[in-house]
């Protein structure tokens, strides 16, 4: 193990885990003095090409409050066939199947390289994945057409046995029955009235005649498919039907008078979708995919009235408490989101409109259920089309990159407690000995539910060191954390992934340099940022900034070296050197700054920030800027206005946008058409290079970033200019700057 950097990287690759501190301060007091909390970013389903799942059940600690999974850190008595739980120290018998183990014949879970291991277990029947399209019909003709095509196309991308359903809405909500032949049949609901799940099921005729359903495991009773099949049908059976149905889909026929918004019943539509699945397929992998082209304008969850003269709430309105529908709507969607999450389903929101669509209010639907949130200008853009297509992307092994109904169980050794998690999850309210009273993020539990996740979904998990200062940990002691993720694989298998990690304890007073050196500033930046964003969501913006500043100051105070009253003497060690820079850009990021962003945009940005892995998160905090010039190979340059030079092409990736910016000279050359001249082929190549790189990024990114190609003085150049550090501005000449 050469350096901490390598160690960190290796850990990340193997376990999908990055801790802010890789050597842990051994007492509560010292830990709090470290400023940055002990926390980690966990990517539960991190893609592991080299990790073949094992086909048996994990072995659990027999202590009911522990139930940790047998792992390489456990002490094993091969003779007695006993193992000691490394969390609770309970001694457990191996199950009979393990009778043959010995030091040379170890099961995989005991091998150190399997600190992360995946089990495939047989539990209950396998229910196919479910995709329920909830489609807004209050769209412009072109948009609707494009959306219809996308939806039709998506049918071919779905797993063949997946069940699909269709709900359309406008002024009314229609639940389409897909099984019937001849007359197409749909159930229609008023868009202004919220209905309970029971009402919805009654009205859809889903009230089943007392078929016993074991909780969490729908039985494959013969009736069930019959009941559900009216609205949810296997794709392969009805794709023709559904294609026709989508083809015949008309714009909402109710007249919209001038000066009015169309009446859009998004709230009820979602409610019905949730109720439908709740009644038919509880605790099964299911996606409710909401496609909306505007704000909900009526009924529960309405965000704005139908009068066009009343604009949709802005941050300004919200601050002034002028957003009259916001609280109610938010509450509606939160209730829905919680119900959905409780049933293990997820809600995706695909909102394409030039104006806001109410993502602020609806965000929890995606946030709490792990659904996607996509924001675009129109359904008729490649941004939407490709993003949507990418939802159905398959991984390297031909499996869909989506998993459902996961629950994450975190177990810690005694010196640690769990403070909370931040990410697309909800609490399962599992109290236990390892749950801290202090909450950071979603706390008070050691288990969370992640209704939908993909290999990049990343949670931030915060810990608290509870070891008292006066009870030192013996030298060489290690703290351990185990993450147990149970989920439904896209193949509908039930799987359990177990990751067990351990870190050394260190006395902060005597071994501070060790701790310092083991600081992961990138992870720390993201973890702090998540905390900040989490707070921003619930608190006032400026307070968050102040809090961030204070944390930074305290950190510098703790780990910086300086002479009092001498700014130039300030030094930070290498492992901290980038951290202030991250904080600087974070302060300016749209995650914390709402200026110039609509509430919807803020919600959108924050949504993605709270679920992306470390690399992507860092890009979001501090966009990457590459420079292309004749002076050398492409190089990353400082995100600073000084990097903008006439003879450079800049490629900026902010995660949400990809901006290619041609410097002044380059732009002139291009206008002059040099790239078309054979003798200036190198110029052509220079122009092409950033395009290729951008394409590469576009290929993998979800959601598709907005792709902007601009040049010096172009109006779109603002996207770049707003991000760079304004070290040079037209004000510099005068008196600006400190």
């Amino acid at each position: 193990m050469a350096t901490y950097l390598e160690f960190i990287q290796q850990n990340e690759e193997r376990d999908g885990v990055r801790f802010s501190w890789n050597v842990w301060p051994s007492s509560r007091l010292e830990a709090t003095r470290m400023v940055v909390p002990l926390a980690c970013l966990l990517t539960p389903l991190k893609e592991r090409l080299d990790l073949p799942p094992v086909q048996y059940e994990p072995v659990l600690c027999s202590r009911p409050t522990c139930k940790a999974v047998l792992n390489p850190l456990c002490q094993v008595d091969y003779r007695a066939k006993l193992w000691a739980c490394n969390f609770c120290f309970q001694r457990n018998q191996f199950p009979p199947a393990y009778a043959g183990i010995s030091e040379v014949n170890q099961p995989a879970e005991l091998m150190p390289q399997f600190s992360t291991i995946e089990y495939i277990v047989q539990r209950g029947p396998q229910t196919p994945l479910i995709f329920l399209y909830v489609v807004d019909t209050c769209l412009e003709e072109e948009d609707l057409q494009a959306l219809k095509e996308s939806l039709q196309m998506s049918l071919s991308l779905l797993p063949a046995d997946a069940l699909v359903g269709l709900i359309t809405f406008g002024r009314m909500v229609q639940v389409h029955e897909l099984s019937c032949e001849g007359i197409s049949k749909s159930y229609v609901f008023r868009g202004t009235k919220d209905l309970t799940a029971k009402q919805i099921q009654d009205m859809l005729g889903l009230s089943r005649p007392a078929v016993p359903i074991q909780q969490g495991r729908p039985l494959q009773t013969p009736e069930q498919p019959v009941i559900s099949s009216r609205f949810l049908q296997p794709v392969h059976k009805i794709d023709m039907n559904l294609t026709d149905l989508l083809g015949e889909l008309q714009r909402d026929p109710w007249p919209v008078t001038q000066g009015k918004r169309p009446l859009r019943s998004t709230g009820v539509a979602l409610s019905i979708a949730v109720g439908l699945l709740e009644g038919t397929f509880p605790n099964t992998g299911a996606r409710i995919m909401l496609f909306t082209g505007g704000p909900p304008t009526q009924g529960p969850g309405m965000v704005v009235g139908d009068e066009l003269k009343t604009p949709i709430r802005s941050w300004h309105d919200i601050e002034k408490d002028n957003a009259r529908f916001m609280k109610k709507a938010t509450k509606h969607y939160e209730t829905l989101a919680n119900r959905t999450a409780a049933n293990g389903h997820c809600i995706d929101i695909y909102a394409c409109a030039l104006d806001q669509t109410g993502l602020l209010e609806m965000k929890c639907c995606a946030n709490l259920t792990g659904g996607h949130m996509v924001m675009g200008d129109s359904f008729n853009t490649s941004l939407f089309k490709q993003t949507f297509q990418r939802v159905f992307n398959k991984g390297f092994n031909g499996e869909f990159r989506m998993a459902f109904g996961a629950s994450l169980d975190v177990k810690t050794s005694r010196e640690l407690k769990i403070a909370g998690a931040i990410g697309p999850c909800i609490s399962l309210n599992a109290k236990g000995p390892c749950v801290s009273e202090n909450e950071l993020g979603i706390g008070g539990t050691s288990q969370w539910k992640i209704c939908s996740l993909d290999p990049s979904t990343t949670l931030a998990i915060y810990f608290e060191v509870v070891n008292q200062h006066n009870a030192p940990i013996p030298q060489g002691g290690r703290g351990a954390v185990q993450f147990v993720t149970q989920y439904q694989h896209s193949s509908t298998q039930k799987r359990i992934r177990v990751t067990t990690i351990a870190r050394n304890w260190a006395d902060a007073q005597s071994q501070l340099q060790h701790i310092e050196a083991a600081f992961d500033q990138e992870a720390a930046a993201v973890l702090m940022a998540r905390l900040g964003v989490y707070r921003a969501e619930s608190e006032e913006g400026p307070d968050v900034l102040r809090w961030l500043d204070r944390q930074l100051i305290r950190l510098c105070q703790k780990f910086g070296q300086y002479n009092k009253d001498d700014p130039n003497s300030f030094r930070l060690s290498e492992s901290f050197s980038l951290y202030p820079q991250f904080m600087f850009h974070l302060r300016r990021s749209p995650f914390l700054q709402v200026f110039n962003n609509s509430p919807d945009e803020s919600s959108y940005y924050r949504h993605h920030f709270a679920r992306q892995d470390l690399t992507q998160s860092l890009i979001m905090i501090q966009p990457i800027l590459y420079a292309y010039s004749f002076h050398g190979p492409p190089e990353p340059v400082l995100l600073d206005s000084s990097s903008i030079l006439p003879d450079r092409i800049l490629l900026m990736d902010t995660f949400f946008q990809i901006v290619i910016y041609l410097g002044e000279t380059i732009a002139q050359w291009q206008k002059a058409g040099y790239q078309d001249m054979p003798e200036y082929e190198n110029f052509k190549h220079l122009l092409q290079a950033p395009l290729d790189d951008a394409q590469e990024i576009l290929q993998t990114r979800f959601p598709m970033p907005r792709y902007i190609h601009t040049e010096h003085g172009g109006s779109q150049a603002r996207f770049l200019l707003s991000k760079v550090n304004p070290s040079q501005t037209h004000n510099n000449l005068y008196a600006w700057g400190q």
Partner: protein
Amino acid sequence: MSVNQQAHTGPPYGQPQPGYQGYQQPAYGGQPLPGVPQSQYGAYNGPMPGYQQPVPPQGYFPSLGFPSKGSPVSLNSDTSSLAPNFIGSLRAPPTSGAPPPASGASLPSGHLAYSQFGHGDVQNGIPTSAAPMQRPPASQPFLPGSAPTPVSQTSTFQQYGPPPASVQQLSNHMAGMTIGSTTASAPPPAGLGYGPPTSVPPVSGSFSTTGSGLYTPYTASQGPPPTSVSQGLPLAQPPFPGQPISTQRLPTQVPGFAPPPSSTGIGPSSYPPTTGAPRPPTMSGPPLPGQTAAGPPASQPNHVSSPPPPATMAGPHPGPHPGPPMSGLHGPPPPTHPPQPGYQMQQNGSFGQVRGPQPNYGGAYPGTPNYGSQPGPPPPPKRLDPDSIPSPIQVIEDDRSNRGSEPFVTGVRGQVPPLVTTNFVVKDQGNASPRYIRCTSYNIPCTSDMAKQSQVPLAAVIKPLATLPPEETLPYLVDHGESGPVRCNRCKAYMCPFMQFIEGGRRFQCCFCSCVTEVPPHYFQHLDHTGKRVDFYDRPELSLGSYEFLATVDYCKNNKFPSPPAFIFMIDVSYNAVKSGLVRLICEELKSLIDFLPREGNMEESAIRVGFVTYNKVLHFYNVKSSLAQPQMMVVSDVADMFVPLLDGFLVNVNESRTVIASLLDQIPEMFADTRETETVFAPVIQAGLEALKAAECAGKLFIFHTSLPIAEAPGKLKNRDDKKLINTDKEKTLFQPQTSFYNNLAKDCVAQGCCVDLFLFPNQYLDVATLGVVTYQTGGSIYKYAYFQLETDQDRFLNDLRRDVQKEVGFDAVMRVRTSTGIRATDFFGAFYMSNTTDVEMAGLDCDKTITVEFKHDDKLSEDSGALLQCALLYTSCAGQRRLRIHNLSLNCCTQLADLYRNCETDTLINYLAKHAYRGVLGSPVKTVRDALINQCAQILACYRKNCASPSSAGQLILPECMKLLPVYLNCVLKSDVLQPGPEVTTDDRAYIRQLVTSMDVAETNVFFYPRLLPLTKAEVDSDSLPAAIRNSEERLSKSDIYLLENGLNIFVWVGVNVQQSLIQNLFGVSSFSQISNALSTLPVLENSFSKKVRSIVDMLQVQRSRNMKLIIVKQEDKLEMLFKHFLVEDKSLSGGASYVDFLCHMHKEIRQLLS
């Protein structure tokens, strides 16, 4: 009155006429004894009193006048003198009617008649019956009967025919008289009823029997009078007018009959028959002979009461009376003289008898129930002879023959139109056709006091969109341009023929409120020398009683011209409906029916759009947009909060979406073939339709096909609350009230949108028509009910109803206002509509069969000069979406004399009003209260007449105004109807259903509904297209060897007697014997023989006349179904406790007497 006048004028008699007129008026006014005649009579009276005194029946005394008139007069004044006498007598006696005529010989007879009447004979009945029947026979019989007198009598009979002709009139009078007397005689059977005359010869016998022997009657009659209802008087009165004429011929006699001024009214009626019929009758006379035989009995009939007395009377009278009675009726003159003495005698005797009867009355009446029980009505001898009481059949026949031939020209104010049962052509010359408006009286009392005194309700039955026969022209459409119809500035009355143009045509004075309004420049026209506008005949609104205005946008909802209306078909697809094949049937039918939606005049296709909904516990809407390859179904399960799930494609043009609709209708039965859903909703269905119309911003009509009580969880959910125990309790009214006010509110919303609801019900059990029908009722819709619907038997009826209902002319979103000239005011409205204020009748839909009855009350005095005017303005949207105003104007006379009022009444209309009033009453009061109130009101009406208009006569006489002589029989029918007196087999739903049906009925419908038409099929002439002559609704008139048809607008019964010839059965039913006739038949088999064809054509003809397809029921005599059939023999005592006609008449008489004393 006018009739009378005509009659008078008609008669050449200078003297008589003047006298007449003078008399009449005074007579009416001062019923006391008119001038001279009176005195004469007076003298008579003297004697009479004597009689009376001896005679117990004091009731008679009143009739004293008669006697006086009778013998003395007649004696004194021969023919010539008679006339005056008559007149005098007429007036004086008016009440007594007959007596005066008797002045001469006739007078006595008349008196006799009267007296007889007094006895309680219902003369009215007789007259009618007598008229037709008697005419012929009478004449002949008479001839034979009494040589001299008889002859004269005969002549009189003949006179009957032509009312104008003095002779006829006489005859009429005679008829009337006889009727009075004869009615009792029930001679009806023998038109001979006149039998009296005929009886003359046999007279003695017959008369005696009748007790009404003309003269004898007097005496005797007096006796009986008390008992007998002396309707005769009124009847007799009618004759009076004719009397003058009669005087000529048989002054004496005629007068006698004619005298009753009241009868005048009748006279006309009776005349006509006489006129037309009389002669022919005479022809038929021959048959009469046979009748003559009957005649005798006939005489009895006259004296309703007589029956009892007759017996006794018969004994004694016969001898003495024979001559007289005959004379009395027919050839009163001769007999009169002799009679007098006899009279006394008779009277005495009769009195005694009379008394007898009276007691009977008392006994019988006291307990209404007793009625029936009392006298076995059947036993002719003991009871009133049914033939002697006023016969509806006779009245109808008379009117038909008198007024059916001439067109009814509406130019004259206050004309009484022919009866609804008469076919006639109307020529609009300034007043609305009676097809649009009929009034209870065409002569309105000038003051409210008078109106109150008479108790005659002032009401108009208005059918604004009535269908006209092809030979009459539809109302013209008038367009007054952008400024809209010209109206009075103050009361907003529309321009009409009664507006007075003044100042050279620059202004007009409103005929309703007298306000002067400027004529708009574009409407200005010069006046001619008579003050008429020059363009009088070019403008319908100036020369016609009915016309239409094109409404401007100001008359439209929201100031927007309406869109064409829509029809929405809403089909119950619950298990019952599907299983019975109903759903398939409806769908099949709709496929073709949608091509026959109503269209405006010359339009090529209907502007009406259609939509489809099916439902059970949830609703299914269908998108049938023409661009779709397949219809789309949209299910709305949120029945708690109904809405329409689609806009575009729900209501479509039939031609554009034909294939999609056809495909839909093909698939609906399949889709629900396996349904197991038995519960239904109802209110949400209406709400859905309402919302659909709202969304489409148009008016329209919902056709709902529903099968069961809506018990599914939804608004308007109902529970089964049927409870037979409530019948005859104070809570009975709740059965007619809706269970919940929800439907009332819904109805209100429907009306606001112009959403009319037609309901087709197919219940297998109670489904609470009272509640389900609320919306239908208040939106002006129709309910059709097919209990225990069976595809095989009921489908034709249902489909015919459906076709008719869909195709018929209908207006939407209608508001009707009735304006009246100052002095009266429309105060109450009956019918299927909604009122949000006190003046505007709002109907979401109004079809050509819907009728509104409007009651008027005085709020000031009216003047005889200006009369009273009605203007009914109906604002509606036509089936093409055009907004229009239909205006009907009617002018009525006003009177200061009650007699005028009674002479211009129309009983059918009156019954229409009374029935509707009573049927509404059951909502708020116990049924018994309603019945009593009804009886009481009619008793008051008749008592008032008796007191103020009829000539003084014995209180024992029942005297009915000619125009109202059918009031008792019809009233009894109303009282016995299922609503007011249900039999055990009548369900609560039936009662509610009928209650609502009747409320929208027009006069013709109520007439036949309450007094069904009974036709002897075996008497039908196979070669002509005419219907056989109807007979009275009584079992005793059915012959075991005949086949009868009875129709009441809802059902047609074919009753087969046990002894019917096999050949007839074979011809009609295609089976060889009586026992093989299946009573499951719902149609008559189509057989190729003339009898079958004839009967089927009769059935078809009847079906066409009615707004609903009637259910055909085959009833075999002595079969269990016969009970049902007998229920409709309304003159008989009913199983549910309803009184027989005879009993009821007695009861009425008692009531009247109580009021008078």
